[in-house]
């Protein structure tokens, strides 16, 4: 067993003696006896590195890695360049604390400044924070940015990812924000319903674009409706899509948020991922969490610092609009490295491939006997419905080493394609689905 304690027993004794203690127990003598643990903890004995490694490998071996994956629904398998892992494994980045001591943290601060710039470039917004936990909590935090004394109602599309919706519900129940869900119609936000629901009390309107079903929303029009009553417009977006799809800025959004996982982060059974948040300049001071700014040192040399800190909990305490403290800095670094590695052309190529492959796969599944639910344009996800039970289709695919789409209900499946899905794998998967329909 190990505990990473350098001190030997002899050194311990020396230190105890110098400090005026007889024993280790004496260090804890002021703790009342009645709360102390009686005996040993009921967990196994410690192990050597070799033993731990073997044990963890055995546990990991009980998972199944699928070489072909058509599942998205909020977590996406993309190609991750080797350079990403190489950079985020550097221990100066990996093991550093939050860069409050700017003079010895310029590397991290600059990487965040670069990340903020890239997020603004992607989204067409003016200011970005240094990240929050994930896409769902980013949406919840963005709603809090919009609430004012006179506007405490949030309208959120029913066509957003269910995790986003559930997270927003939880946050709103805490803060007392009235949450109203805009119904969906034909797989998109029901614009007529929105027009009926919105009023002067509305703080914000929030949609996901492309939405949970992969559909493109009437994103520009919805923004106009929101602004018509003086409400803010929040768009939750997939960062890969921004290689080809209009930016939230172009659609008129006030706040753009999303999950940065597709930008170089592995699926990792759901985390750690990356919540990005960006907004128009007027709302900068409402952004939660850390923000890095450029400045100069005493000698006029350019440098970076955590700035606008008086917004944050460690200064504003109960008057802070968010409690966020730790963020996902290393994941933001990964996203920065990823975007630097793929470049503008690369990101566009990846986005086009996602979209193209999804459409190819949709066509194959249609030929295999499924109906495509998406009425209009979709990005890299789409929904099939068929009279074959989803469970059966997915089990057949699984038997062949393929993780099929995500079952939405008994007969509907949400599929996803990325640049990782080769034509031959799509052909093979569609063949299995067709075979499944025949038996």
């Amino acid at each position, binding site marked *: 067993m190990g505990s990473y304690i350098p001190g030997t027993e002899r050194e311990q004794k*020396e230190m105890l003696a110098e400090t005026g203690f007889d024993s*280790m127990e004496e260090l804890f003598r002021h703790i009342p006896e009645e709360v102390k643990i009686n005996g040993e903890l009921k967990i*196994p004995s410690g192990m050597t590195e070799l033993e731990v490694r073997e044990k963890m490998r055995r546990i990991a071996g009980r998972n199944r890695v699928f070489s072909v994956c058509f599942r998205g629904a909020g977590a996406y398998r993309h190609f991750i360049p080797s350079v990403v892992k190489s950079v985020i494994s550097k221990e*100066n980045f990996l093991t550093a604390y939050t860069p409050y001591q700017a003079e010895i943290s310029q590397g991290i601060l600059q990487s965040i400044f670069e990340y903020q710039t890239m997020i603004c470039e992607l989204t067409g917004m003016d200011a970005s924070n240094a990240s929050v936990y994930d896409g769902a909590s980013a949406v919840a935090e963005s709603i809090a940015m919009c609430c004012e004394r006179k506007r405490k109602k949030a309208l959120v599309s029913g066509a957003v990812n269910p995790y986003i919706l559930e997270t927003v519900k939880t946050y709103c129940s805490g803060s007392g924000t009235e949450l109203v869900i805009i119904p969906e119609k034909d797989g998109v936000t029901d614009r007529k319903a929105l027009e009926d629901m919105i009023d002067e009390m509305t703080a914000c309107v929030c949609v996901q674009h492309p939405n949970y079903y992969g559909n493109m929303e009437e994103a520009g029009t919805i923004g106009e409706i929101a602004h018509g009553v003086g409400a803010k417009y929040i768009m939750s977006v997939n960062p890969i899509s921004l290689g080809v799809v209009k930016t939230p800025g172009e659609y008129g959004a006030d706040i753009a948020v999303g999950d940065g996982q597709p930008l170089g982060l592995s*699926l990792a*059974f759901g985390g750690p991922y990356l919540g990005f948040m960006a907004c128009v300049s007027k709302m900068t001071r409402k952004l939660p969490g850390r923000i890095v700014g450029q400045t100069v040192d005493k000698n006029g040399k350019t440098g970076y610092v955590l700035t606008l800190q008086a917004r944050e909990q460690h200064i504003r305490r109960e008057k802070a609009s968010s409690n966020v*403290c730790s963020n996902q*800095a290393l994941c933001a670094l990964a996203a920065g490295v990823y975007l630097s590695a793929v470049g503008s052309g690369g990101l566009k190529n990846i986005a086009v491939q996602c*979209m193209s492959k999804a459409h190819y796969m949709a066509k194959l599944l249609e030929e295999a006997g499924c109906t495509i639910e998406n009425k209009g344009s979709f990005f890299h996800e789409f929904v099939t419905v068929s009279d074959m039970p989803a469970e059966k289709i997915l089990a057949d695919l699984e038997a062949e080493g393929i993780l099929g789409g995500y079952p939405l209900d008994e007969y509907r499946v949400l599929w996803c394609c990325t640049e990782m899905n080769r034509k031959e794998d799509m052909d093979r998967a569609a063949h299995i689905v067709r075979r499944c329909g025949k038996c």
Partner: protein
Amino acid sequence: MLVFERGREGRGLSLIPACDVELVMPEKSDKRKRALHLPELSESELCRHYTDLAKECYGVNDGFYPLGSCTMKYNPKINEDMAALPEFTEIHPLQPEHTVQGCLEVMKTAEEYLCEITGMKRMTFQPAAGAHGEFTGLLLIKAYHDSRGDKKRTKIIIPDSAHGTNPASAVMAGYSVVSIPSGEDGCVDLEKLREAAGDDVAGLMLTNPNTVGLFDKNILEITKIIHECGGQCYYDGANLNAVMGMVRPGDMGFDVIHLNLHKTFSTPHGGGGPGSGPVGCKEHLAEFLPSILVERGEKLSFVKPRNSIGEIKSFYGNFLIVVRALTYLMTLGREGVPQVSGNAVLNANYMMHKLKDCYTIAYDGVCMHEFVMSLSDLKKKSGVSAMDIAKGLLDNGIHPPTMYFPLIVDEALMVEPTETESKETLDEVIAVFKKLYKTAERDAGELHAAPVHTPVTRLDEVGAARHPVLKYEFSK
């Protein structure tokens, strides 16, 4: 140089083959028109850029890192290896249950070990950080009172020595904050607590040992006062490194806790995150936990708690951080856990003892894993502030302690050496601290000017905040 200023148009990496199906683009009305500026670099330039940046960072292997309340202990390498296993990294969170038994085993085992260490019944790993855990824990308290039809409880009691996240989380959960002053010994003032306790109190948030590094010996009385008024007790696990294996929050009378896996359980801070803030609770709160719980049976399976507060983020938390923490716990085992806290407390007391003839210790006595010094006497005498000493430490290759916290101590420096530092490191650092004190008495100007041996000197924070420049502006 910024990454945008490196490279040349047309450079890049060869990453992805050409598309093997017919190309499809968004319709014109949804097509991006805005130019997209991303770096265009060769792989070698890219690596050199980030290596340059890494040189201007300070990690736990660069030297002593005594940030109070942050527990900057050594981050074991095997943890990283285990978190990088493809059987963990390549798993989609929505895979069928029978294909993710390994992940469930990680979550279940980590829950069992951590519940045993903390004296809790169940634990969720969904919260991504400590503050996220606080928010979650408070919602559990709220759901508990609501479930009993007890709607009059609108207040959370928080000592004035608490972390800023505590009051901020309470407000996010819809509570108002009652701040109670600490007693002269830095601990909870029982009289003040009794005055504040009443049938409008939903609960108390407390760190024990507290933020001045002392174990509140009245802890059983404190939790009793809260329980007697019908409230719940929340334990902020920021300082668990001082007592794990010795005392359990559950036995102190706490009903709900959060842990910081990135502090106590050796997972790296990553320059600010990702962390992990699991929330544990006693039986009576378990039905309200968010997300899913893992149950053992013939197979491991997901179960939604009966009256769950819902989700607080997507999926099940920062899973790879949990893998690291579990690896650490397997290494430590039941013998290693108390050794960690024992040595953390020993190192802190040793440092405090050696420094107290020079620096003013804010609260004298036996400290736990950290202690607080007040430099207000030095400042009056020499004009040298806690900030100046901190900057002087930078010039000596040492990361400063936490500055100006807790708020109840003037000119505070809060020192937490952790158990992974050796005696010789502590001795070297003690010598530097003493040297700086002498410098302050002799030549305040030298410390006002510090640091000078760092990549940049003190930065203009006022200018940065008055006229924020938050991104690079591309020409054209």
